[in-house]
């Protein structure tokens, strides 16, 4: 019986296996990035970037239809452009980076909706916003897997300065000039992972698989390596349970995955050992001599 519920759907249907592989790959690439964003207090950055991707993907869609590479490359260009412009405005003027980012992503989003609606039907717009994890072809899977691999490699390369900047940006600046290029590379990774995620989950929900597991992990450990491990596992588990939920209960697949991630987050807020609500209400007694 547990076999029928938990494993058989994936054995019987190819589309379920593909969806699972995509969810696992996305969790592997996006969750570590989510953890870094959270630690740098840039949790809303992912959301802003997801909106910023829309016009690029829309232009790709207008040029080539529902073409994977056209939409991905368009999204990538739009996302990087917004990130860079926001960075430049923040450095050159008095506006803070969050404000200039908000300005550019709002303009970008409006542009995206304009472009999409110029084409006509709302159904097309829904593809952008919600994606479809059940309809992944081989090319989409390869793209998602490639993005995850690339993310992990680049993260490994820029890991030390990246963590240092989370903890003590002033110290990093005093010993190295890697700060700015590392920051830009990291922003590139954020955009790249969102582009990978929007094939499967759509622009909005892709952020969910990036951020929610990171927040969840925060309640289980203080160690950053362990935090990333927990985040990846949480993301993978969300994908697996979400797909089963969609299969058995008939819920739309993408939202189901994010809802499971949200449930895990709320559970951790309550029961997590590091700063969870229950732990604060009933603190462990200290050892007393």
């Amino acid at each position, binding site marked *: 019986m547990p076999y029928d519920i938990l494993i058989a*759907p994936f054995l*019987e*249907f*190819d*589309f*379920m296996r*593909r*969806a699972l592989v995509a969810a696992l790959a996305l969790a592997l690439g996006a969750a570590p990035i989510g953890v870094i964003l959270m630690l740098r207090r840039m949790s809303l950055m992912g959301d802003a970037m997801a909106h910023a991707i829309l016009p690029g993907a829309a232009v790709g869609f207008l040029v080539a239809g*529902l073409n994977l590479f056209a939409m991905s490359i368009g999204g990538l260009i739009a996302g990087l452009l917004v990130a860079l412009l926001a960075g430049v405005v923040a450095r050159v003027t008095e506006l803070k980076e969050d404000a200039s980012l908000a300005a550019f992503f709002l303009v970008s989003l409006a542009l995206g909706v304009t472009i999409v609606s110029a084409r006509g039907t709302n*159904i097309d717009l*829904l*593809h952008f916003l*919600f994606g*479809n994890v*059940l*309809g*992944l*072809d081989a090319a*989409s899977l390869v793209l998602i897997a490639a993005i995850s691999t690339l993310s992990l490699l680049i993260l490994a390369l820029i890991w030390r300065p990246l963590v240092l900047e989370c903890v003590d940006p002033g110290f990093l600046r005093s010993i190295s000039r890697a700060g700015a290029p590392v920051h830009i590379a990291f922003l590139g990774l954020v955009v790249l992972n969102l582009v990978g995620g929007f094939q499967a989950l759509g622009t909005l929900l892709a952020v969910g698989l990036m951020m929610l597991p990171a927040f969840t992990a925060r309640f289980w450990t203080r160690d950053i390596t362990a935090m990333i491990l927990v985040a990846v596992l949480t993301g993978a588990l969300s994908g697996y349970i979400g*797909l089963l939920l*969609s*299969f*058995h*209960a*008939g*819920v*739309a*697949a993408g939202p*189901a995955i994010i809802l499971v991630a949200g449930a895990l987050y709320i559970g951790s807020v309550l029961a997590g050992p590091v700063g969870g609500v229950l732990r604060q209400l009933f603190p462990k007694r200290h050892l007393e001599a």
Partner: protein
Amino acid sequence: MMRWLVAALVAMVAAPALAQGKVNVATSFTILADFARNVGGDRVEVVSLVGPNGDAHSYVPSPADAKKLADAKLVILNGLGLEGSTERFMRAAAKDAKVIVASDGITPLRLGNDPDPHAWQSVANAKIYVANIRDALIAVDPASKSTFEANAAAYLSRLDALGIEVKAEIAKIPPDRRKLVTTHDAFGYFGTAYEIAFIAPHGVSTEAQASARDVARIIAQIRAQKIPAVFLENVTDPRLLERIARESGARIGGTLYSDALTEPNGPAPTYINMVRHNVQELVAALR
């Protein structure tokens, strides 16, 4: 110069007055408008409230529509619940126009608990529509009786030929392959008339985004019943369609037109084109 301008203005103002020599006819959707144009010929001016490619089921009337109805001498409705709550609006806005229900005299199929409004999908029913529209036109413009009767007779014989053509085309499909899975609910009359089974996917919502359960059910059903083709209108993502086709072994059918005609340059600008197009798509996918 000024005189020319005045003359042009007078001509523009006078043009609608000229059109009043014709009978203004308003219909609820494009297929009825096509019938009315064929019967009325140059004696009528036909407007359709729901335009080409519009969805008659989700139609919301506008003030401009009330104007069209008020100008009409004849208003043609489908009936059988197609117009839904807007039927009352149309009857009220029609003022002193004659209002007819074109599907009068058709034995309705059921769609759940309600009558199935898509009666025009069977060519035999379309002939009843045309006869009703002919009689109504004669009633509002008796002077043109002979024109209407001649036009209707010519059009009815074209519909007869169409019916024979459809039967011949469907006969190309082997009888055990005359079934398909579809989320269209508009082909009950067509399926009954031409013995093609339009099977609705079990427990699949036609409106919402397809869930993993929906997709799995469609695939499992196609495999179990050895169905040669699927026509899905709610699954608009071509990648998902391709997955369903790959995993089930069924062919993915093209677009079927059910409730609305297309623009003149589309594949189904008239009723006869629409039926031909649908039959070609069906034969191509099932044969």
